[in-house]
């Protein structure tokens, strides 16, 4: 839960900004950033976590829950960036143009106009990412555990907790998607 929560929160903190940058700015290396944001589509969180463990601790044994949370955030980034780009594209241009004509720079347009009008699909994507990350980390822990430890994990609260988290995340995402902004 901790890994999933921190991963989703991390992606939520960075994803919308990155999406806003990609949606509104032209800069050198934009394609590379877009490609990097898509990397988790081909690299599972476990592999990403191993890379991070190598990069941060210099050895695979450095795969602590903190490194796992970092890898989870990177893995969830793809979903939040995609959701945020779609959400920002759905915000009528008129509102963004109005804000610019009132002298608001890009960050203020994002913070005061685009984010409040488009946050629901972004939150929905983050909540789904949380459920998926929690489940993937649980699988990794189960596979890694040996003998009695695996039995204890299977008999313990891990699986019901992951299931409940997935159900809650799905419900939340569904409500957020359906709860259209009253404008």
């Amino acid at each position, binding site marked *: 839960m901790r890994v999933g929560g921190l991963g989703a929160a991390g992606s939520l903190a960075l994803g919308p900004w990155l999406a806003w940058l990609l949606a509104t700015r032209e800069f050198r290396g934009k394609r590379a950033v877009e490609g990097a944001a898509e990397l988790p589509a081909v690299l599972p969180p476990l592999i990403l976590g191993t890379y991070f463990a190598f990069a941060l601790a210099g050895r695979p044994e450095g795969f602590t829950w903190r490194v796992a949370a970092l890898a989870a955030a990177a893995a969830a980034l793809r979903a939040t960036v995609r959701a945020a780009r779609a959400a920002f594209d759905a915000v*009528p241009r008129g*509102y963004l143009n*109005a804000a610019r*004509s009132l*002298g*608001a720079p890009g960050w203020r347009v994002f913070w005061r106009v685009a984010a*409040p009008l488009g946050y629901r699909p972004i939150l929905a994507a983050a909540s789904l990412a949380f459920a998926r990350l929690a489940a993937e980390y649980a699988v990794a822990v189960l596979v890694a555990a040996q003998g009695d430890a695996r039995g204890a994990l299977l008999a313990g609260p891990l699986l019901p907790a992951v299931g409940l988290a997935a159900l809650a995340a799905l419900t939340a995402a569904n409500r957020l998607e359906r709860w259209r902004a009253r404008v």
Partner: protein
Amino acid sequence: MTSARIGKKTAPGFALDVEFALPQGVTALFGPAGAGKTLILEALAGFATPDSGRILLDDVLLFDAAARVSVPPHQRGCGYVAQRDALFPHMTLRQNLAFAAHRSPRVERTRRVAEMVERFQLGAAAVRRPRDVTPPERLRGAVARALLASPKLLLLDERGFDETLLRTVREAFAGPILLVTDDLDLCSAAAGRLILLDAGRMVQSGAPESVLDRPESVAAARLLGIPNIFECTVAALDPGRRSSRLEFSGFAINGPYLPGHFRGDRVSVTARPEDLRVHAGESERVENAVAAELVRVSRRVRMVRMEFAGGIFVDVPHEEYEGKKDSRSWLVEFSAEKVRVF
């Protein structure tokens, strides 16, 4: 000085190519849908990038295609009131106004917002969100918000303006205002300058009364909704009497003298329906009149429009029509001074 030269190709077959100056006061931009009015405003505001041209606002360069200069929209100082999606829906009107005054210190901001709320009569509406207020309140709120950002140029792309609101705006803002409108009465009453736009080109510009009274081309006459547009031949020219004889298919009239034209030239003639007169009965002797068959009559608020065979339209007051309506034959009188020949 504020001026713009804008060239931009958008869809195949459409190219915007305009050049105009914006003096202090209201300049009205009038044209059919798709003429490029909104594109001009977007180019001035910085939301659309022209392919060519140059935009100066108060002698400050905002855009120059050749020099690759383009000031970003938030630094241009162009207040913009759009047709739709003007006020932020997640804020109350007062919050919308405060958003525009964000550069002012808190106390100053509160004072300026309160002043605009009062000036634009938004008292009760100020605490509501845009969806909960009436369209006129929304428009007043959007204008008040644009003015709070202290613009140097005001761009109004909203058809809901009336004379009273425009007067209130002018009391609060002394700079140039570019107004997109389809209301010629409003142009005449409130604008200092009128630009006629069609298919991305300026057809005519000048003082509203001059443009409305003296369209300089068939295109301008069409834009102004003048229905009497005829093709004819110059049958005679009389420099002594300063007159001409114009032959249409089926009738001929005396027109103004046409310097630079020759006998046999094909020309276009326009006449406002209110500048033509109708006479009932054949017995009347009327100069410069043609017999015409009445085809249709449509009653309007201020007058009756009579349509005659050959596409001749005449507007007459209700009382005059009531007095003549039983007539079986009609004469339409053209005034040589009031027909325009191109």
